[in-house]
């Protein structure tokens, strides 16, 4: 098992992810600069949080055109496992790998807090250590995490069992309390909360470990 963590100019959770996967879980992890196009040899790719390319225009709008993401599309088509966290989730929606869009929090605040979450679906590879409706608590840190989509897309996400995580106490105005979704095949998960910040006992909660440890089994 090899994990690649994509690094854009402006990524700031790349090292946190590597700490979680390599130091806490023992999975070999390398950084992938955004200009690379070679994803051969990786079993899973993580797109970390941050402010890729400054998030000018819209979050993820410019990152979406990075060379590495062209390769990511074929990686996903071949069933490769992808986890997009926070800015990574925003990038996956801009890229069209995941549906919907993320926009300004309803209260306009940058929210840095803990969020209580419910596992809404275990369809995704990443959720295989959970049972449906399990409760977990993960850190959130975002200004643009309000998930939006049309009512048709929302119905499709619900019908396909693609809503992966819901907030108990919706912090940002997301439609249907959505905190994370998967693609139809379940190999791609995008989520606003940060599992990589909840993998080390020293930091308190370790609820994020179960998501990332899906890579071990």
């Amino acid at each position, binding site marked *: 098992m090899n994990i690649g963590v994509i690094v854009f100019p402006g990524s700031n959770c790349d090292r946190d992810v590597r700490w979680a996967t390599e130091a806490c879980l023992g999975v070999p992890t390398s950084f992938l600069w955004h200009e690379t196009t070679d994803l051969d040899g990786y079993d899973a790719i993580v797109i970390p949080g941050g402010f890729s390319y400054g998030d000018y*225009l819209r979050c993820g709008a410019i990152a979406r055109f990075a060379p590495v993401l062209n390769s990511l599309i074929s990686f996903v088509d071949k069933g490769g496992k992808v986890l997009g966290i926070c800015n990574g989730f925003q990038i996956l929606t801009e890229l069209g790998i995941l549906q*919907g*869009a993320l926009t300004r929090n*309803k*209260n*306009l605040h940058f929210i840095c807090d803990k969020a209580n979450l419910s596992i809404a679906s275990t369809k995704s590879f990443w959720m295989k250590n959970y049972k449906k409706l399990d409760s977990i608590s993960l850190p959130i840190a975002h200004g643009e995490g309000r998930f*939006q989509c049309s009512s048709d897309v929302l119905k499709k996400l619900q019908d396909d069992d693609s809503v992966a995580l819901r907030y108990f106490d919706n912090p940002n*105005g997301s439609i249907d309390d959505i905190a994370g979704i998967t693609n139809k095949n379940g190999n791609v998960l995008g989520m606003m909360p940060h599992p990589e910040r909840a993998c080390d006992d020293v930091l308190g909660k370790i609820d994020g470990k179960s998501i990332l440890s899906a890579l071990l089994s």
Partner: protein
Amino acid sequence: MSLFKARVFVHLRPSVLDPAGEATRSATKRLGIDGVTQLRIGKSIELEIEAASKEDARSKIEIMSDRLLANPVIEDWTLEFKDEQKSLKN
């Protein structure tokens, strides 16, 4: 080739809440102006583009607007050309 000046105005779809617009609207009351019932904030993008014709420029800007300048999931856009074209000397 000619140089065309254009403006693309990107705004949130009417169905998408614009909290920044709402916050600004509430400030109009504090300024003492009543009666502002709707205030929504968008982005204005001014650009110059070289193209063979206005139609060519329009089709390029349309692609840019759909794929880069706006996110059609939450945003709409409109395009206006600013003034007459300038011919480019090669």
